[in-house]
């Protein structure tokens, strides 16, 4: 290991960009003795260090595993192209950051699936690690390759490559998986008998071992179902969920990187899940139910995290932080306590209907961060279709509030290509941006400022996602998405409004892999062979190569992305049970076309999405201003 480190540090790192990505040795890094543990796992993030280190899930699992006496976890990230080239030239295999050990030496490698367009990087990392890509070609001498994270809710496109998938919240399942692997190896003098081990692992709730399932197609290649191939294998895999976030593990000594990462701050997870019910949003469906942490717990964690990291900023993270029951007192108290040390608070993902002037005034007390809101659609009609329960009045109030509180810039996120969208909805995006800008001008001029407000409009293309009410939807064609982008670009011609849009071809491939089945494995493998990797990085995205690959495999990505489904259709992810029922999703889809909205169960009572009944869990909210016992949370 030390000789590998020496070679890499002396001969490779001086010649690559950002060598700190590959050095490790950060503050709070954990290096455990290899020989004193029973199970050694590697956490693999299929993107660069700066992206991977910003991921809260990795922080949680890394320290959770390392705090167990008999287990260790190290890290690896996708090396950037220059590093990969140098490694291949010198014959250096992919290595772990902690101990510079070849990744092949680990018992188990776990990839996190955060977005579909990182899949080629997974194959590339396995190849760099000198590990066969296809699960069936990996013998007992190779590590077990597993995956989890949001994209695992449709595991099929990766089924050829993975030994197993974790469905649901990793901190629940992973310790059980590691224990079974460790016990299996102990009984066999350190050796692995892969088929037996997978059978044992498949008995754990939330574990999907694709080798024991086969897709069945009818003659016209339509999927009929995914069937278990052995009698003792569960036909459906039910997601695992942390019942009580209050009792759940949260790391208090996270690694502090030397180089600047994307989210370079304390991440305090205030709540998990979201029940707003936006119909396009996968996270909003699969992370249910909503579970809030106690205010006292969060304050104590904040204190410890600041002291153990030295960060000067706390981000209150969740899918929708301004929805936290006691958000205002929490922010105020944290600022009061740490203002002297100039600790700033940032709130990602604010909602325009739960953002208030007092919250605005609080968060800019120390450091003024940017403000981002996501109206998602340009008209009330379309916002009702997608169940984004915010109104134009909400947005204008927020704009007024923010400009009065001293902000001059604001970012607005929208989506194009949503079901039922018309020109009017596109016009609505431009109008809304203009109205916000006008409001900003009025407020700024009103207080005698000659500053120009600046609005950034960021437009992404709708991607239908599994386990959402829009999972049956087709995506707009590439041509139509591009035309809509140009239409908006021409419509928004104002120096004070910056218009950004995402590469539509990438969104199309994202839809293909989001909705795809096991047959996409061959496409993925071939695309990687032809050089595709880092697809979500515009400088690396090779659309032509992707197109050629699909053609070579007799597929047309446009057709796959645009395909719509019927209620009775078998979907490739039907064997994955994430708690919210398919019936509920279809009902929501029907309501979408009727422009009927569905209330948030936190305020409007149970909507019977199935999560609480199906998984025996509860929504957990903290009551404002009074002590609540963790055992008797407010249950809806």
């Amino acid at each position, binding site marked *: 290991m030390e000789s590998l480190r020496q070679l890499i*540090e*002396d001969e490779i*790192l*001086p010649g690559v960009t950002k*060598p*700190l990505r590959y*050095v490790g*040795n*950060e*503050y709070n890094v954990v290096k455990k003795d290899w020989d004193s543990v029973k199970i050694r796992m590697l956490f693999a993030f299929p993107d660069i260090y700066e992206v991977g280190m910003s991921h809260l899930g990795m922080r949680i699992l890394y320290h959770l595993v390392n705090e167990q006496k008999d287990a260790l976890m190290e890290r690896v990230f996708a090396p950037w192209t220059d590093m990969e080239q140098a490694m291949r030239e010198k014959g250096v295999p992919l290595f772990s950051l902690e101990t510079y050990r070849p990744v092949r030496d680990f018992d188990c490698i776990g990839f996190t699936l955060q977005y579909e367009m990182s899949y080629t990087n997974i194959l590339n990392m396995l190849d760099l690690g000198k590990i066969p890509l296809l699960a069936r070609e990996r013998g007992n001498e190779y590590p077990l390759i597993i995956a989890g994270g949001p994209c695992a809710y449709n595991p099929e496109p990766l089924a050829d490559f993975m030994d197993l998938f974790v469905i649901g919240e990793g901190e629940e399942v992973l310790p059980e998986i590691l224990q079974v692997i460790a016990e299996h190896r102990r009984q066999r003098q350190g050796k692995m008998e892969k088929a037996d081990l997978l059978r044992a692992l498949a008995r754990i709730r939330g574990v999907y071992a694709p080798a024991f399932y086969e897709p069945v197609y009818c003659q016209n290649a339509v999927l009929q179902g995914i069937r278990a191939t052995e009698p003792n294998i569960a036909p459906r895999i039910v997601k695992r969920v942390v019942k009580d976030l209050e009792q759940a593990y949260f790391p208090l000594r996270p690694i*502090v990187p*030397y*180089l*600047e990462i994307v989210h370079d701050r304390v991440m305090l997870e205030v709540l998990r899940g979201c029940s707003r019910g936006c119909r396009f949003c996968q996270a909003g469906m699969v992370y249910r139910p909503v579970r809030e942490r106690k205010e006292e717990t969060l304050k104590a964690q904040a204190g410890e995290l*600041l*002291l*153990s*990291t*030295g*960060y*000067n900023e706390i981000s209150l993270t969740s899918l929708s932080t301004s929805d936290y029951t006691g958000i205002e007192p929490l922010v105020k108290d944290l600022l009061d306590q740490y203002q002297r*040390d*100039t600790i700033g608070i940032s709130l990602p993902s604010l909602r325009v209907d739960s953002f208030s002037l007092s919250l605005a005034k609080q968060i800019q007390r*120390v*450091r*003024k961060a940017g403000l981002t809101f996501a109206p998602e659609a340009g008209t009330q009609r379309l916002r009702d279709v997608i169940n984004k329960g915010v109104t134009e009045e909400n947005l204008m109030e927020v704009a007024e509030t923010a400009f009065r509180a001293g902000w001059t810039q604001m970012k607005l996120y929208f989506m194009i290509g949503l079901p039922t969208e018309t020109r009017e909805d596109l016009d609505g995006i431009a109008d809304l941006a203009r109205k916000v800008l006008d409001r900003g001008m009025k407020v700024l001029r009103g207080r005698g400022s000659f500053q120009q407000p600046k609005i950034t409009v960021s437009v992404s293309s709708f991607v239908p996602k599994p386990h959402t009410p829009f999972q049956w939807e087709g995506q707009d064609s590439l041509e139509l998405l591009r035309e809509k982008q140009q239409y908006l670009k021409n419509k928004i011609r104002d120096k004070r409004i910056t218009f950004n849009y995402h590469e539509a071809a990438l969104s199309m491939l994202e839809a293909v892999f989001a909705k795809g089945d096991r047959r996409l494995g061959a496409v993925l493998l071939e695309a990687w062979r032809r050089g595709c990797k880092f697809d979500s990085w515009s400088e690396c995205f090779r659309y032509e190569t992707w197109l050629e690959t699909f053609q070579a495999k007799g597929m047309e990505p446009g057709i796959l992305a645009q395909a719509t489904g019927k209620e009775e259709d078998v979907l490739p992810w039907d064997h994955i049970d994430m708690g919210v029922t398919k019936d509920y999703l279809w009902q929501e889809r029907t309501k979408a076309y009727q422009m009927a909205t569905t209330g948030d169960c936190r305020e409007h009572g149970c909507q019977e999405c199935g999560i609480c009944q199906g998984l025996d869990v509860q929504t957990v909210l903290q009551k404002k201003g009074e002590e609540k016992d963790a055992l008797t949370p407010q249950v809806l």
Partner: protein
Amino acid sequence: MLLRLKYCKTQAGRFLSHLDQVRTLERAFRRAKLPLAFSEGYNPHPKVSYGSALAVGVTSDGEYLDLELREALPLVKIKEQLISSMPPALQLLEIKELHARTVSLSALINLARYRVDTICSVSLTFRQAQEAIDKVLSSTQYLVDRRGKNGLRQVEIRAGIYALHGWLEDSKWILEMDLRTGSTGNVKPEEVVQMLVEINGFGMCEIIRVHRKGLFVLRDKEIKTPLEVE
């Protein structure tokens, strides 16, 4: 309370840029619970001033910074808390209280001492190596090209080479040099190697490691450390 810190940049930290160091040190100060004094304004930052920026890839045994605290604490306590808060890349060596706000570190420091490990394309005898160094020291002028904002410009470096000596160790030629740094100009160790190679016709010398032994104050022909002067 004003403090002057001496710290080193270890092998583990050699790839830190100056900006990475600034961020990393601020976090170490916060972990050490030091009551930092902050600048005013929208984005307050701790009042820290640095001696001389260190290039990426270079390790050092003697870096300095001045730090202001909003309240006084016993030096022993500060030192103890800081040592355990520093990451593997940067280690605290010494600490001293400054009693008056005088010249800034960057104005004070004017000499940097380097050790440079090289491998020469020709194999040198002890004598050849010594003569090569003497030739540099006996020359009066040497111009190097530097790329700046306004394109290439030529800079004279000989006057900024205060001392140079070297020895052979296995296949390596190890050089030690005292070079001008700070507000009056900078000479880079790579430029001195370039000069050695060129005026002696050595073909090429590959630099395999650059290490800064320390930063100093050269005043009236006397070399002192920044901890020895205020």
